[in-house]
């Protein structure tokens, strides 16, 4: 019965989803509905919006996401090693391996920083 351990998580998800969906439905059910052209416009402090909002944005957001992904993968790779790190029999083996890994990570970080990949200009 492996799934019984995850029953609370699934039930929590179900309760949360039920609550959230009920909230959205309730807000649509109650309350008036008086649409007008001016009200439906995107809010821009009173001025009429010019053009479409979903224009392409600069690539720096993409760069941030890409770097985040790479570091996140490193974190995920380190995680299983870290759980056995403390009690591993050959502690200096674990130490060398983990620190080599982290040193390479630091090399990557220094490279990115040196090339100005972290500048937000």
């Amino acid at each position, binding site marked *: 019965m*492996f799934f019984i351990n995850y029953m609370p998580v699934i039930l929590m998800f179900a309760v949360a989803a039920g609550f959230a969906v009920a909230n959205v439905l309730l807000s649509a059910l109650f309350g008036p509905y008086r649409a007008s052209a001016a009200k439906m416009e995107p809010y821009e402090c009173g001025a009429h919006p010019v053009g479409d909002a979903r224009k392409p944005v600069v690539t720096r*957001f993409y760069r941030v996401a890409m770097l985040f992904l790479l570091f996140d993968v490193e974190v995920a790779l380190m*995680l299983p090693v870290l759980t*056995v790190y403390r009690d*591993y029999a050959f502690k200096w083996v674990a130490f060398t*391996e983990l620190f080599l890994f982290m040193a*390479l990570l630091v090399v990557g970080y220094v490279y990115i920083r040196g090339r100005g*990949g972290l500048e937000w*200009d």
Partner: protein
Amino acid sequence: MNILLFYPLSALIIILSLGVILATNPVHSALLLVGAMVAIAGVFLCLNCEFLAMLQIFIYAGAIMVLFLFIVTTIDTRKDEKFVSSAKFSQASGILLSGSMFFLFFFLALQFVQHLPDTGRWLGDAKGLGELFLKSYSLPFEVVTLVLLTAMAGVIVMSHDPLYRRRSKEASKQILSGGNKA
């Protein structure tokens, strides 16, 4: 018990994946893919691999799909919605490729039916995986970092436009010299 959950989950994954390729809006596609990723985490749970299930959500749903969404914002979605139909050649090659992929996976799956791998024994928990990394697979563990290092260099080279940088620097200099220095 687990096999009973496997079939509805697989059906859900197939439906969501179909939604990914049939949706005309890229953001809808990406979101359906997030759903498929979470459902795949459920399949990992069926195989008693809770660590992999959580990693699936952490990496695929939490990091890769965020990247996809960011990419979507860098393209003009309204314009691209019109290009739904594609040329005859790419359709034919697509059918050919996906057909051969299907048969490949089909025969692979047939192989696994004959001798089921006991994945839950060592992949299920983080500790087993960690000991494997430290003992048998220590070299691949380090080499993976080199791959990621290459990827980092790639990101910098690709997303770094020196022309853009120079222009934006000049612009910010103009703003700063206007007495607006923070």
